[in-house]
């Protein structure tokens, strides 16, 4: 299982190829990416994902969205002046 099988699936099957338990696997993939699953559960999820075109796509998408959120949003730094003001007011 792996890249070759997915290539076959990709070539032979329509883009719309569905997984009968797609929602179930999406939720498990999310729990895994959120670090809420055990190694054993991860292996169970990855085994399915690796052999299912649809779920592999979803897995890829979930990772891409997380990376975009983490890396593409602007993070503002609080100015030193404002930090000083906060310090003064909080400790007053």
């Amino acid at each position: 299982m792996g890249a070759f099988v997915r290539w076959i699936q990709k070539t032979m099957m329509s883009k719309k190829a569905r997984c009968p338990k797609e929602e179930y696997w999406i939720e498990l993939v999310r729990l895994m990416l959120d670090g809420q699953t055990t190694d054993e559960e991860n292996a169970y999820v990855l085994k399915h994902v690796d052999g299912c075109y649809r779920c592999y796509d979803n897995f890829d998408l979930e990772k891409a969205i997380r990376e975009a959120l983490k890396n593409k949003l602007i993070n503002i730094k609080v100015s030193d002046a404002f930090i000083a003001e906060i310090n003064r007011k909080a400790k007053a």
Partner: protein
Amino acid sequence: MGKSKVGYNDIEKNDIFDNEFMTHIDALYNFAYKLTHNEDEAKDLLQDTCMKAFRFINSFERGTNAKAWLFRILKNSFINDYRKKSKNPGMVDYQEVETYYSSDGGEIETQSTPDLRSETVKGMLGDEITNALNSMAVDFRTVIILCDLEGFKYDEMSKILDIPIGTVRSRLHRARNILKEKLAAYAASMGYK
């Protein structure tokens, strides 16, 4: 919030504030800004949070998760003080959100998730991701921010939001579906393939 036996002395209070709290100031500000969408409100919210943190510093137990403790104060301040004042129609009550979705069996967002390719997301600009996130109801936005941006675990989010872990899990799942839909709709409107 644990400790209530002994209070900290002034040196200890300053030390905790400077070294355990202020290291999270940028994360707190960015959380406040993403909740309010307004620079002045975010600054007020941050200031309130820090003032409360110092005032109630005795209820913080040293060595425990300061970041989660502070985020909880900020989120409570937001709900109690800012959300009431705000006229933003995108803001919905937590309870409402839960009732709304559970009464429909959560079908709304699972029915027809539009196709969205990971390559499309990888090609999106920061502004496009920001717009999608900002257009979500604040309750859903919050769980995404806490989990994906700040890296809190479900048990920490449960404490910050005062909801059971099961609710964290289901709300996050719904939030991710909604975000995916928003991104897909945005991609379609921009003609991305």
